[in-house]
Protein backbone atom coordinates (compact mmCIF):
# COMPACT_ATOMS: atom_id res chain seq x y z
CA UNK A 1 0.00 0.00 0.00
CA UNK A 2 1.20 3.48 -0.74
CA UNK A 3 1.80 6.26 1.70
CA UNK A 4 -1.39 7.24 3.47
CA UNK A 5 -3.75 9.95 2.23
CA UNK A 6 -2.27 9.56 -1.18
CA UNK A 7 -4.99 11.49 -2.94
CA UNK A 8 -4.74 14.35 -0.52
CA UNK A 9 -0.98 14.67 -0.90
CA UNK A 10 -1.27 14.63 -4.67
CA UNK A 11 -3.99 17.27 -4.62
CA UNK A 12 -1.97 19.52 -2.35
CA UNK A 13 1.11 19.19 -4.52
CA UNK A 14 -0.88 19.97 -7.64
CA UNK A 15 -2.37 23.03 -6.00
CA UNK A 16 1.08 24.32 -5.05
CA UNK A 17 2.39 23.80 -8.57
CA UNK A 18 -0.62 25.64 -9.94
CA UNK A 19 -0.18 28.57 -7.59
CA UNK A 20 3.57 28.89 -8.10
CA UNK A 21 3.03 28.47 -11.82
CA UNK A 22 1.10 31.71 -11.63
CA UNK A 23 4.42 33.40 -10.95
CA UNK A 24 5.64 32.20 -14.35
CA UNK A 25 2.61 33.83 -15.93
CA UNK A 26 3.45 37.05 -14.10
CA UNK A 27 7.05 36.93 -15.29
CA UNK A 28 5.91 36.62 -18.90
CA UNK A 29 3.50 39.53 -18.48
CA UNK A 30 6.21 41.63 -16.84
CA UNK A 31 8.72 40.98 -19.60
CA UNK A 32 6.23 41.95 -22.23
CA UNK A 33 5.04 45.01 -20.38
CA UNK A 34 8.55 46.33 -19.93
CA UNK A 35 9.39 45.67 -23.55
CA UNK A 36 6.29 47.58 -24.53
CA UNK A 37 7.41 50.47 -22.37
CA UNK A 38 10.91 50.46 -23.76
CA UNK A 39 9.84 50.43 -27.40
CA UNK A 40 6.51 52.14 -26.85
CA UNK A 41 4.88 49.13 -28.49
CA UNK A 42 1.13 49.64 -28.12
CA UNK A 43 0.21 46.33 -29.66
CA UNK A 44 2.37 44.41 -27.22
CA UNK A 45 0.85 46.40 -24.41
CA UNK A 46 -2.61 45.37 -25.64
CA UNK A 47 -1.58 41.70 -25.46
CA UNK A 48 -0.49 42.09 -21.87
CA UNK A 49 -3.88 43.50 -20.94
CA UNK A 50 -5.73 40.76 -22.77
CA UNK A 51 -3.62 37.95 -21.33
CA UNK A 52 -4.33 39.07 -17.77
CA UNK A 53 -7.39 36.86 -18.14
CA UNK A 54 -5.02 33.92 -17.87
CA UNK A 55 -3.79 35.14 -14.53
CA UNK A 56 -7.28 35.82 -13.27
CA UNK A 57 -8.30 32.36 -14.42
CA UNK A 58 -5.40 30.84 -12.55
CA UNK A 59 -6.48 32.73 -9.45
CA UNK A 60 -10.01 31.33 -9.64
CA UNK A 61 -8.72 27.80 -10.22
CA UNK A 62 -6.40 27.88 -7.24
CA UNK A 63 -9.02 29.55 -5.06
CA UNK A 64 -11.58 26.83 -5.84
CA UNK A 65 -8.95 24.21 -5.31
CA UNK A 66 -8.17 25.61 -1.88
CA UNK A 67 -11.82 25.64 -0.89
CA UNK A 68 -12.25 22.05 -1.98
CA UNK A 69 -9.14 20.93 -0.20
CA UNK A 70 -10.20 22.63 3.04
CA UNK A 71 -13.73 21.23 2.88
CA UNK A 72 -12.89 17.73 1.81
CA UNK A 73 -9.61 16.94 3.46
CA UNK A 74 -9.58 19.02 6.65
CA UNK A 75 -5.83 19.70 6.54
CA UNK A 76 -4.10 20.50 9.79
CA UNK A 77 -0.65 21.57 11.00
CA UNK A 78 1.85 22.18 8.20
CA UNK A 79 -0.66 21.16 5.54
CA UNK A 80 -3.04 23.83 6.78
CA UNK A 81 -0.34 26.49 6.78
CA UNK A 82 0.61 25.56 3.24
CA UNK A 83 -3.00 25.90 2.10
CA UNK A 84 -3.37 29.26 3.84
CA UNK A 85 -0.05 30.43 2.37
CA UNK A 86 -1.14 29.40 -1.13
CA UNK A 87 -4.19 31.59 -0.74
CA UNK A 88 -1.89 34.53 -0.02
CA UNK A 89 0.45 33.61 -2.85
CA UNK A 90 -2.27 33.46 -5.45
CA UNK A 91 -3.62 36.81 -4.26
CA UNK A 92 -0.15 38.25 -4.72
CA UNK A 93 0.03 36.69 -8.18
CA UNK A 94 -3.24 38.28 -9.14
CA UNK A 95 -2.17 41.67 -7.84
CA UNK A 96 1.15 41.47 -9.64
CA UNK A 97 -0.72 40.62 -12.81
CA UNK A 98 -2.79 43.74 -12.31
CA UNK A 99 0.36 45.80 -11.85
CA UNK A 100 1.68 44.49 -15.18
CA UNK A 101 -1.60 45.54 -16.76
CA UNK A 102 -1.21 48.98 -15.19
CA UNK A 103 2.25 49.26 -16.72
CA UNK A 104 0.94 48.19 -20.09
CA UNK A 105 -1.92 50.67 -19.96
CA UNK A 106 0.57 53.48 -19.48
CA UNK A 107 2.28 52.76 -22.81
CA UNK A 108 -0.23 54.31 -25.26
CA UNK A 109 -0.73 57.19 -22.84
CA UNK A 110 2.93 58.07 -22.81
CA UNK A 111 2.69 58.79 -26.50
CA UNK A 112 4.73 57.78 -29.55
CA UNK A 113 8.16 59.07 -30.25
CA UNK A 114 8.32 60.93 -27.00
CA UNK A 115 11.58 62.27 -25.78
CA UNK A 116 13.11 59.83 -23.41
CA UNK A 117 15.64 60.18 -20.67
CA UNK A 118 18.37 57.55 -20.74
CA UNK A 119 18.98 57.55 -17.00
CA UNK A 120 15.34 56.97 -16.21
CA UNK A 121 15.07 54.26 -18.83
CA UNK A 122 18.15 52.53 -17.44
CA UNK A 123 16.75 52.69 -13.96
CA UNK A 124 13.43 51.26 -15.15
CA UNK A 125 15.25 48.44 -16.90
CA UNK A 126 17.29 47.77 -13.78
CA UNK A 127 14.10 47.70 -11.70
CA UNK A 128 12.60 45.29 -14.18
CA UNK A 129 15.55 42.96 -13.89
CA UNK A 130 15.37 43.05 -10.12
CA UNK A 131 11.63 42.40 -10.16
CA UNK A 132 12.15 39.43 -12.48
CA UNK A 133 14.86 38.04 -10.27
CA UNK A 134 12.72 38.52 -7.16
CA UNK A 135 9.83 36.68 -8.79
CA UNK A 136 12.08 33.77 -9.55
CA UNK A 137 13.64 33.77 -6.12
CA UNK A 138 10.27 33.92 -4.38
CA UNK A 139 9.11 30.95 -6.41
CA UNK A 140 12.26 29.00 -5.57
CA UNK A 141 12.10 29.92 -1.89
CA UNK A 142 8.50 28.71 -1.57
CA UNK A 143 9.01 25.53 -3.57
CA UNK A 144 12.05 24.53 -1.53
CA UNK A 145 10.77 26.02 1.76
CA UNK A 146 14.06 27.93 2.02
CA UNK A 147 13.82 30.52 4.79
CA UNK A 148 17.25 32.01 4.07
CA UNK A 149 16.40 32.60 0.45
CA UNK A 150 13.10 34.15 1.50
CA UNK A 151 14.72 36.57 3.89
CA UNK A 152 17.26 37.56 1.24
CA UNK A 153 14.41 38.93 -0.85
CA UNK A 154 14.11 41.84 1.53
CA UNK A 155 17.63 42.89 0.67
CA UNK A 156 16.89 42.87 -3.05
CA UNK A 157 13.64 44.68 -2.54
CA UNK A 158 15.36 47.52 -0.76
CA UNK A 159 17.33 48.04 -3.97
CA UNK A 160 14.08 48.32 -5.97
CA UNK A 161 12.77 50.82 -3.47
CA UNK A 162 15.95 52.87 -3.81
CA UNK A 163 15.67 52.91 -7.61
CA UNK A 164 12.06 53.99 -7.31
CA UNK A 165 13.04 56.99 -5.20
CA UNK A 166 15.86 57.82 -7.64
CA UNK A 167 13.54 57.81 -10.64
CA UNK A 168 11.21 60.14 -8.80
CA UNK A 169 14.07 62.52 -8.03
CA UNK A 170 15.31 62.40 -11.62
CA UNK A 171 11.82 63.11 -12.97
CA UNK A 172 11.43 66.13 -10.75
CA UNK A 173 14.71 67.52 -12.11
CA UNK A 174 14.03 66.60 -15.74
CA UNK A 175 13.68 70.11 -17.07
CA UNK A 176 11.11 72.40 -18.64
CA UNK A 177 10.10 70.55 -21.79
CA UNK A 178 6.40 69.68 -21.43
CA UNK A 179 6.58 66.47 -23.46
CA UNK A 180 9.58 65.24 -21.54
CA UNK A 181 8.03 66.13 -18.25
CA UNK A 182 4.82 64.27 -19.22
CA UNK A 183 6.81 61.20 -20.23
CA UNK A 184 8.76 61.31 -16.99
CA UNK A 185 5.50 61.41 -14.97
CA UNK A 186 4.36 58.25 -16.67
CA UNK A 187 7.70 56.64 -15.92
CA UNK A 188 7.18 57.45 -12.25
CA UNK A 189 3.93 55.53 -12.40
CA UNK A 190 5.65 52.60 -14.13
CA UNK A 191 8.31 52.61 -11.44
CA UNK A 192 5.66 52.57 -8.78
CA UNK A 193 4.03 49.51 -10.35
CA UNK A 194 7.38 47.76 -10.37
CA UNK A 195 7.93 48.69 -6.76
CA UNK A 196 4.52 47.20 -5.88
CA UNK A 197 5.50 44.01 -7.66
CA UNK A 198 8.60 43.90 -5.51
CA UNK A 199 6.53 44.30 -2.35
CA UNK A 200 4.33 41.43 -3.39
CA UNK A 201 7.33 39.13 -3.74
CA UNK A 202 8.29 40.06 -0.20
CA UNK A 203 4.76 39.12 0.90
CA UNK A 204 5.32 35.72 -0.66
CA UNK A 205 8.62 35.44 1.19
CA UNK A 206 6.82 36.13 4.48
CA UNK A 207 4.49 33.25 3.69
CA UNK A 208 7.49 30.96 3.24
CA UNK A 209 8.61 31.73 6.77
CA UNK A 210 5.06 31.23 8.05
CA UNK A 211 4.79 27.80 6.47
CA UNK A 212 8.14 26.69 7.87
CA UNK A 213 8.03 28.21 11.33
CA UNK A 214 4.35 28.78 11.97
CA UNK A 215 5.12 32.37 12.87
CA UNK A 216 4.07 35.36 10.84
CA UNK A 217 6.39 38.33 10.81
CA UNK A 218 6.35 41.29 8.54
CA UNK A 219 9.81 41.61 7.05
CA UNK A 220 9.74 45.31 6.39
CA UNK A 221 7.03 47.72 7.28
CA UNK A 222 6.67 51.14 8.88
CA UNK A 223 7.84 49.86 12.24
CA UNK A 224 10.69 47.76 10.88
CA UNK A 225 12.42 49.79 8.21
CA UNK A 226 15.14 47.92 6.40
Amino acid at each position, binding site marked *: *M*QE*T*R*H*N*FREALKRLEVQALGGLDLVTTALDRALEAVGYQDVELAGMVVADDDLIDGRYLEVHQGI*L*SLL*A*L*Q*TPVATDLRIVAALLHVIRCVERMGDQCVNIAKLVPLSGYESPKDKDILDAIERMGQLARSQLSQAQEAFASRNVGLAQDLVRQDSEINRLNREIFRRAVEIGDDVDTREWAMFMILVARCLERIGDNTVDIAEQVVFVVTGLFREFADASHPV
Partner: protein
Amino acid sequence: MIPRDTQKTDPAQTQQPVRDKEPVEVSDSPAEEQQDVSTRSQDGVTAAGHNVVLTDLHAYYGSVHAVRGVNITFPPNEVSAIIGPSGCGKSTMVRCINRMHEEIPGARAEGSVTLDDVDMYGDNVDVTSVRRLVGMVFQKPNPFPTMSIFENVAAGLRLTGTKGVNMRERVHRALRAVGLWEEVKNRLNEPGIGLSGGQQQRLCIARTVAVEPEVILMDEPCSALDPVATLKVEELIDELKERYTIVIVTHNMQQAARVSDTTVFMLDGELIEHSPTDQLFTRPKDERTERYVTGKFG
Protein backbone atom coordinates in the same frame (compact mmCIF):
# COMPACT_ATOMS: atom_id res chain seq x y z
CA MET B 1 -9.63 -16.95 -15.25
CA ILE B 2 -10.80 -14.23 -17.57
CA PRO B 3 -10.50 -10.83 -15.87
CA ARG B 4 -13.89 -9.38 -15.05
CA ASP B 5 -13.72 -6.14 -16.96
CA THR B 6 -13.02 -7.61 -20.36
CA GLN B 7 -16.00 -9.89 -20.28
CA LYS B 8 -18.59 -8.56 -22.67
CA THR B 9 -21.50 -10.68 -23.76
CA ASP B 10 -23.01 -10.76 -27.19
CA PRO B 11 -26.46 -9.22 -26.64
CA ALA B 12 -27.94 -12.06 -28.66
CA GLN B 13 -26.87 -14.63 -26.09
CA THR B 14 -29.16 -13.40 -23.38
CA GLN B 15 -28.75 -16.40 -21.08
CA GLN B 16 -24.98 -16.09 -20.79
CA PRO B 17 -23.76 -15.69 -17.19
CA VAL B 18 -22.29 -12.27 -16.55
CA ARG B 19 -18.97 -13.51 -15.32
CA ASP B 20 -17.02 -16.38 -16.74
CA LYS B 21 -16.97 -18.57 -13.67
CA GLU B 22 -18.47 -21.90 -12.73
CA PRO B 23 -22.22 -21.75 -12.13
CA VAL B 24 -23.01 -20.78 -8.59
CA GLU B 25 -25.10 -23.29 -6.68
CA VAL B 26 -28.26 -21.78 -5.33
CA SER B 27 -29.68 -22.83 -1.96
CA ASP B 28 -31.69 -26.02 -1.60
CA SER B 29 -35.06 -24.32 -2.01
CA PRO B 30 -37.04 -25.53 -5.04
CA ALA B 31 -34.77 -24.37 -7.83
CA GLU B 32 -37.46 -24.10 -10.47
CA GLU B 33 -39.44 -21.47 -8.62
CA GLN B 34 -36.54 -19.32 -7.59
CA GLN B 35 -34.70 -17.17 -10.04
CA ASP B 36 -30.99 -17.01 -9.48
CA VAL B 37 -30.32 -13.34 -10.05
CA SER B 38 -26.59 -13.82 -10.37
CA THR B 39 -26.90 -15.38 -13.80
CA ARG B 40 -29.01 -12.67 -15.33
CA SER B 41 -28.16 -11.32 -18.73
CA GLN B 42 -26.11 -8.32 -19.55
CA ASP B 43 -27.73 -5.95 -21.98
CA GLY B 44 -25.87 -4.17 -24.76
CA VAL B 45 -24.65 -1.36 -22.47
CA THR B 46 -20.91 -1.67 -22.27
CA ALA B 47 -20.40 -0.23 -18.79
CA ALA B 48 -17.99 -2.46 -16.91
CA GLY B 49 -19.34 -1.09 -13.64
CA HIS B 50 -22.67 -1.77 -12.03
CA ASN B 51 -25.17 0.83 -11.05
CA VAL B 52 -27.85 0.61 -8.41
CA VAL B 53 -31.12 2.46 -8.82
CA LEU B 54 -33.64 2.99 -6.05
CA THR B 55 -37.06 4.07 -7.22
CA ASP B 56 -39.70 5.34 -4.83
CA LEU B 57 -38.32 3.24 -2.00
CA HIS B 58 -40.29 3.09 1.21
CA ALA B 59 -39.23 1.07 4.25
CA TYR B 60 -41.17 0.33 7.41
CA TYR B 61 -40.55 -1.15 10.82
CA GLY B 62 -44.09 -2.20 11.61
CA SER B 63 -45.93 1.09 11.41
CA VAL B 64 -42.85 3.31 11.60
CA HIS B 65 -42.16 4.85 8.21
CA ALA B 66 -38.38 4.93 8.19
CA VAL B 67 -37.63 5.61 4.53
CA ARG B 68 -39.98 7.83 2.59
CA GLY B 69 -40.00 7.66 -1.15
CA VAL B 70 -36.31 7.75 -1.97
CA ASN B 71 -35.23 7.98 -5.60
CA ILE B 72 -31.55 7.66 -6.26
CA THR B 73 -29.00 6.28 -8.66
CA PHE B 74 -25.64 5.14 -7.39
CA PRO B 75 -23.22 5.49 -10.29
CA PRO B 76 -20.93 2.55 -11.14
CA ASN B 77 -17.38 2.42 -9.82
CA GLU B 78 -17.90 5.37 -7.56
CA VAL B 79 -18.06 5.78 -3.82
CA SER B 80 -21.34 7.25 -2.65
CA ALA B 81 -21.57 8.35 0.96
CA ILE B 82 -24.84 8.65 2.84
CA ILE B 83 -24.83 11.14 5.70
CA GLY B 84 -27.47 12.42 8.05
CA PRO B 85 -28.40 12.60 11.74
CA SER B 86 -29.16 9.47 13.77
CA GLY B 87 -32.46 7.92 12.82
CA CYS B 88 -32.67 9.57 9.43
CA GLY B 89 -33.05 6.21 7.71
CA LYS B 90 -29.66 5.95 6.05
CA SER B 91 -28.81 2.49 7.40
CA THR B 92 -32.32 1.29 6.71
CA MET B 93 -32.18 2.48 3.12
CA VAL B 94 -28.86 0.80 2.50
CA ARG B 95 -30.07 -2.44 4.04
CA CYS B 96 -32.90 -2.47 1.56
CA ILE B 97 -30.36 -2.75 -1.21
CA ASN B 98 -29.14 -6.17 -0.13
CA ARG B 99 -32.48 -7.09 1.38
CA MET B 100 -31.15 -7.41 4.92
CA HIS B 101 -33.89 -5.07 6.05
CA GLU B 102 -36.52 -7.76 5.74
CA GLU B 103 -34.64 -10.04 8.17
CA ILE B 104 -35.92 -7.89 11.01
CA PRO B 105 -39.28 -9.15 12.28
CA GLY B 106 -42.04 -6.78 11.23
CA ALA B 107 -39.92 -4.93 8.69
CA ARG B 108 -40.93 -4.48 5.08
CA ALA B 109 -39.92 -2.50 2.02
CA GLU B 110 -41.84 -1.19 -0.97
CA GLY B 111 -40.64 0.26 -4.22
CA SER B 112 -37.95 -0.87 -6.54
CA VAL B 113 -34.27 -1.59 -6.19
CA THR B 114 -32.51 -2.52 -9.39
CA LEU B 115 -28.96 -3.60 -10.06
CA ASP B 116 -28.09 -3.05 -13.72
CA ASP B 117 -31.83 -2.86 -14.41
CA VAL B 118 -32.60 -6.20 -12.75
CA ASP B 119 -35.18 -5.90 -10.00
CA MET B 120 -33.81 -7.24 -6.70
CA TYR B 121 -37.31 -7.50 -5.29
CA GLY B 122 -38.76 -9.41 -8.22
CA ASP B 123 -41.41 -11.99 -7.49
CA ASN B 124 -39.27 -15.07 -7.89
CA VAL B 125 -35.95 -13.66 -6.88
CA ASP B 126 -33.95 -15.71 -4.38
CA VAL B 127 -32.76 -13.45 -1.63
CA THR B 128 -29.44 -15.26 -1.23
CA SER B 129 -28.47 -14.56 -4.81
CA VAL B 130 -29.13 -10.85 -4.26
CA ARG B 131 -26.75 -10.91 -1.34
CA ARG B 132 -24.07 -12.62 -3.36
CA LEU B 133 -24.09 -9.68 -5.73
CA VAL B 134 -24.40 -7.03 -3.06
CA GLY B 135 -21.93 -7.54 -0.26
CA MET B 136 -21.97 -5.82 3.11
CA VAL B 137 -19.40 -4.75 5.66
CA PHE B 138 -20.67 -3.94 9.14
CA GLN B 139 -19.83 -1.41 11.81
CA LYS B 140 -18.28 -3.81 14.26
CA PRO B 141 -15.80 -6.24 12.68
CA ASN B 142 -17.40 -9.68 12.91
CA PRO B 143 -15.02 -12.45 11.85
CA PHE B 144 -16.36 -15.91 12.61
CA PRO B 145 -14.74 -16.94 15.89
CA THR B 146 -14.55 -20.66 15.21
CA MET B 147 -12.71 -20.18 11.91
CA SER B 148 -9.12 -19.48 10.98
CA ILE B 149 -8.09 -16.49 8.87
CA PHE B 150 -8.17 -18.60 5.74
CA GLU B 151 -11.52 -20.12 6.59
CA ASN B 152 -12.98 -16.73 7.34
CA VAL B 153 -12.11 -15.38 3.93
CA ALA B 154 -13.35 -18.57 2.29
CA ALA B 155 -16.51 -18.52 4.41
CA GLY B 156 -18.54 -16.61 1.86
CA LEU B 157 -17.74 -19.17 -0.80
CA ARG B 158 -18.44 -22.11 1.50
CA LEU B 159 -21.63 -20.72 2.97
CA THR B 160 -23.08 -20.13 -0.46
CA GLY B 161 -22.14 -23.60 -1.62
CA THR B 162 -19.94 -22.29 -4.40
CA LYS B 163 -18.25 -25.16 -6.15
CA GLY B 164 -15.57 -25.47 -8.76
CA VAL B 165 -13.56 -22.48 -7.65
CA ASN B 166 -9.95 -22.53 -6.63
CA MET B 167 -10.53 -21.65 -2.99
CA ARG B 168 -6.90 -20.94 -2.18
CA GLU B 169 -6.45 -18.65 -5.14
CA ARG B 170 -9.59 -16.68 -4.27
CA VAL B 171 -8.56 -16.32 -0.64
CA HIS B 172 -5.04 -15.20 -1.46
CA ARG B 173 -6.32 -12.75 -4.02
CA ALA B 174 -8.85 -11.28 -1.61
CA LEU B 175 -6.25 -10.91 1.13
CA ARG B 176 -3.94 -9.11 -1.28
CA ALA B 177 -6.73 -6.85 -2.44
CA VAL B 178 -7.27 -5.60 1.10
CA GLY B 179 -3.59 -5.27 1.88
CA LEU B 180 -3.60 -7.95 4.56
CA TRP B 181 -1.56 -10.52 2.70
CA GLU B 182 1.87 -9.50 3.96
CA GLU B 183 0.63 -9.32 7.51
CA VAL B 184 -1.04 -12.71 7.65
CA LYS B 185 0.50 -14.87 4.97
CA ASN B 186 2.39 -16.92 7.52
CA ARG B 187 -0.49 -17.47 9.87
CA LEU B 188 -3.46 -18.27 7.71
CA ASN B 189 -4.45 -21.08 10.04
CA GLU B 190 -4.61 -18.98 13.15
CA PRO B 191 -7.99 -17.89 14.50
CA GLY B 192 -9.49 -14.88 12.77
CA ILE B 193 -10.29 -13.21 16.05
CA GLY B 194 -6.62 -13.04 16.96
CA LEU B 195 -6.10 -10.00 14.73
CA SER B 196 -6.27 -6.37 15.76
CA GLY B 197 -9.48 -4.39 15.24
CA GLY B 198 -8.34 -2.77 12.02
CA GLN B 199 -7.03 -6.05 10.66
CA GLN B 200 -10.28 -7.79 11.58
CA GLN B 201 -12.28 -5.24 9.64
CA ARG B 202 -10.03 -5.69 6.63
CA LEU B 203 -10.47 -9.41 7.04
CA CYS B 204 -14.22 -8.93 6.88
CA ILE B 205 -13.78 -6.84 3.75
CA ALA B 206 -11.65 -9.62 2.25
CA ARG B 207 -14.41 -12.07 3.12
CA THR B 208 -16.91 -9.89 1.27
CA VAL B 209 -14.64 -9.40 -1.70
CA ALA B 210 -13.81 -13.09 -2.08
CA VAL B 211 -17.37 -13.76 -3.18
CA GLU B 212 -16.78 -11.27 -6.02
CA PRO B 213 -19.92 -9.15 -5.59
CA GLU B 214 -20.73 -6.23 -7.86
CA VAL B 215 -21.68 -3.75 -5.20
CA ILE B 216 -20.26 -3.34 -1.72
CA LEU B 217 -22.33 -1.71 1.02
CA MET B 218 -20.59 -0.41 4.11
CA ASP B 219 -22.47 0.51 7.26
CA GLU B 220 -20.19 2.82 9.26
CA PRO B 221 -17.21 0.55 8.67
CA CYS B 222 -14.70 2.65 10.59
CA SER B 223 -16.74 3.58 13.65
CA ALA B 224 -15.09 0.96 15.81
CA LEU B 225 -11.55 1.56 14.57
CA ASP B 226 -8.70 3.79 15.70
CA PRO B 227 -7.57 6.65 13.40
CA VAL B 228 -4.68 4.79 11.78
CA ALA B 229 -6.83 1.74 10.99
CA THR B 230 -9.55 4.09 9.74
CA LEU B 231 -7.13 5.68 7.32
CA LYS B 232 -6.05 2.30 6.01
CA VAL B 233 -9.63 1.26 5.38
CA GLU B 234 -10.32 4.57 3.61
CA GLU B 235 -7.35 4.02 1.34
CA LEU B 236 -8.67 0.55 0.67
CA ILE B 237 -12.09 1.90 -0.27
CA ASP B 238 -10.41 4.20 -2.75
CA GLU B 239 -8.70 1.23 -4.38
CA LEU B 240 -11.77 -0.99 -4.31
CA LYS B 241 -13.93 1.45 -6.23
CA GLU B 242 -12.05 0.54 -9.37
CA ARG B 243 -13.77 -2.80 -9.34
CA TYR B 244 -16.94 -2.29 -7.33
CA THR B 245 -19.68 0.23 -6.84
CA ILE B 246 -19.50 1.28 -3.21
CA VAL B 247 -22.12 2.80 -0.95
CA ILE B 248 -20.96 3.84 2.50
CA VAL B 249 -23.09 5.02 5.38
CA THR B 250 -21.22 7.22 7.80
CA HIS B 251 -21.97 9.64 10.57
CA ASN B 252 -18.47 11.04 10.22
CA MET B 253 -18.78 13.91 7.80
CA GLN B 254 -15.07 14.34 7.34
CA GLN B 255 -14.85 10.75 6.31
CA ALA B 256 -17.61 11.22 3.76
CA ALA B 257 -15.73 14.25 2.47
CA ARG B 258 -12.44 12.40 2.19
CA VAL B 259 -13.60 9.19 0.72
CA SER B 260 -16.61 9.69 -1.52
CA ASP B 261 -17.26 10.97 -5.01
CA THR B 262 -20.93 11.65 -4.38
CA THR B 263 -22.64 12.44 -1.11
CA VAL B 264 -26.27 11.95 -0.20
CA PHE B 265 -27.87 13.80 2.70
CA MET B 266 -30.92 12.26 4.35
CA LEU B 267 -33.24 13.64 6.97
CA ASP B 268 -36.28 11.95 8.56
CA GLY B 269 -36.38 9.27 5.94
CA GLU B 270 -36.24 11.64 3.01
CA LEU B 271 -33.50 12.33 0.54
CA ILE B 272 -32.65 16.01 0.84
CA GLU B 273 -29.64 16.41 -1.38
CA HIS B 274 -27.59 14.27 -3.70
CA SER B 275 -24.54 16.05 -5.09
CA PRO B 276 -20.91 15.57 -5.98
CA THR B 277 -19.02 15.58 -2.70
CA ASP B 278 -16.94 18.60 -3.65
CA GLN B 279 -20.06 20.61 -4.23
CA LEU B 280 -22.03 19.42 -1.21
CA PHE B 281 -19.30 20.46 1.18
CA THR B 282 -18.44 23.81 -0.42
CA ARG B 283 -21.79 24.98 -1.82
CA PRO B 284 -24.67 22.79 -0.60
CA LYS B 285 -27.87 23.36 -2.55
CA ASP B 286 -30.31 22.89 0.29
CA GLU B 287 -30.37 24.98 3.42
CA ARG B 288 -30.92 21.91 5.59
CA THR B 289 -27.78 20.35 4.19
CA GLU B 290 -25.91 23.54 4.99
CA ARG B 291 -27.18 23.49 8.57
CA TYR B 292 -26.24 19.86 9.05
CA VAL B 293 -22.74 19.96 7.63
CA THR B 294 -21.87 23.15 9.49
CA GLY B 295 -22.99 21.50 12.70
CA LYS B 296 -25.97 23.68 13.45
CA PHE B 297 -27.94 20.56 14.22
CA GLY B 298 -27.49 16.82 14.15
